């Protein structure tokens, strides 16, 4: 170990020396005359190529960094989209519409891509009807969502359902539009 370190230090020193030597020599000479290869000194063209190589490496590093950042943003966006997605239901109904299925397929894709995460599916109802039955209906809705996700390939153990019945409305109003927004399943991560 110690040996390899001292070897490395020696190498760095040699390369530095070579670099300084080439710089020192470069000034009085013209670019057209290549250096003798045997002396180990770089020609001007070689030096230029080396600079080019270094620049490319730096560029690649920046690009990789940018790509990583973009990937992170994309992952974050996908997660946000996953958490913002909601599935809506008809009155006194826990069946999934075509639109709901499409959203749930995307949800399943995210869950499969993030296999370390456990999701909580919340079932909600509008405030028509009565509290107890709505608790059960909310449970049914969350269960419908879970069943779909399981069929789409997500492990059942990664999906927990909680019903809130009509207790946590998204919109505290009493009209058709508000009721439609409140009959929903929501997602959060544990």
């Amino acid at each position, binding site marked *: 170990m110690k040996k390899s370190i001292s070897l490395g230090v020696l190498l760095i020193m040699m390369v530095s020396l070579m670099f300084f030597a080439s710089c020192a020599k470069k000034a009085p000479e013209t670019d057209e005359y290549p250096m003798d290869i045997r002396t180990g000194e770089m020609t001007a063209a070689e030096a230029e190529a080396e600079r080019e190589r270094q620049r490319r490496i730096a560029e690649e590093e920046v690009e990789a960094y940018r790509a990583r950042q973009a990937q992170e943003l994309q992952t974050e966006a996908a997660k946000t989209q996953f958490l913002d997605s909601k599935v809506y239901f008809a009155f006194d109904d826990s069946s999934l519409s075509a639109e709901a299925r499409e959203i749930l397929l995307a949800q399943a894709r995210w869950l499969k891509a993030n296999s370390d995460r456990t999701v909580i599916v919340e079932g909600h109802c509008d405030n028509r*009807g*009565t509290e*107890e*039955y709505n608790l*059960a*209906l909310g449970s049914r809705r969350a*269960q419908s969502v879970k069943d779909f996700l399981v069929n789409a390939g997500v492990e059942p153990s990664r999906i927990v*359902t*909680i019903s809130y019945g009509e*207790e946590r409305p998204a919109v505290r109003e009493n009209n058709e539009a508000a009721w439609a927004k409140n009959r929903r399943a929501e997602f959060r991560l544990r």
Partner: protein
Amino acid sequence: MNGLTLTPPIGRVKTVLLCAVLLLSLAGKGVAATYDYINISDPFHKRIPLAVPVPVSLSDDRETEQIAGSVADLLARSLEFTGYFTLIDRRAFLDAPGKQGITARDVNFKNWRDIGSELLITGGVRLEGRVLQLEFRLFDPFRQELVFGKRYTGEVADYRQMVHRFCDEMIYRLTGNFGVFNTKIAFVSETDSGKVLYVCDFDGNNLRRLTGGDNIVLSPSWSPDGRYLAYTSYRQDKPDIYIRSMATGAERLFAGYEGLNITPAWMPPDGSRIAATLSFEGDEEIYLLTDTGKIDKRLTRSWGVDVSPAFSPDGKKMAFVSGRAGSPQIYVMDLATGRTNRLTFEGRYNTQPSWSPKGDRIAYSGMSGGTSDVFVINADGSQLRQLTRDAGRNESPAWSPDGNMIVFSSTRRGDSGIYVMTASGADQRQVVNMPGNQSLPAWSPVLEP
């Protein structure tokens, strides 16, 4: 005073604090003979005109007079609450205040007959130090007879309890059933951050908050002895069933299975089992649980929602809500055979069954035209009657333990409040006055004093 030594029919009224003495009863006249005043099985019973003059002050000071006034008001209010009586306005009385006498010898029955008073309560108040003595006599001015009389001794602070003892006994003498004067109502009230549990006396007095925090509490259910409340709480961020001791306030987790743990109902007569809806098998079904929350057996087996069990008073049948026919309807299951019959056919949304203490009827809330109303139906499915109409959303009916009244929630004044009515739907009025939305009332059994 010819005191008769009949054993009071209410054994439970004796406590160390309060001492009651039976004053008078007509010789040779059994208790049963007085039942014909009120027939509670008749939903259209006529209200009996009742006079409650301010009791006579038997000790000569201002405090006694003040107490006498409070006693008269409480007595009148409490008896009027039952829906059995019409209170005659004191300004119509022919006798001057405090001059109506106490015993049969002093009472001018004609003066009470002339204002249509079919029943009269005379009273006396005596204050010695902090010891209060209240005596009441119930008369029938038309028969010129004493129905019964009682004297109560206790501390001044307990006057409310003494008056309610008399009311309870009076209702027992007149109907053969104990009244609601020693009962409580539990309910849920909305806060900024959740729903909490409250309890109050039958008439809305002694309001007390039971649960704190910002979680959601729902569906309070009294044990048959009135010593415990079971309810659903999101204390651990999911709906679990807890049981609270009313004496100590201690709360314990009763059922915390995966998924739903909701709508607890104690199985009569002893409450050693609790039915509840659980969903740990992936479907909302009603189970019977032991007193430690272990599963005794599964009661329902249908795909879809089965919820809100309500037992018949003998514990042999269970009403519940099921979505098996495509919309929520009420069903009745015979627990011995498992045989299940659909009870409700009118309307597309019938939930929240409550079985009457007599066992003959089931109250529930039914939705039609976007609003909810309270209905009552015989347990065999006959005689459907609508008790509320055109008054906001009316939900969550629960019977008083004497079967004479129903408590429910109503939005008739905007926010949802706790209301009571007679079992026939008469005298609908708000009993709890507090801001915000209240719901899911549960009426306690008759409590130990």
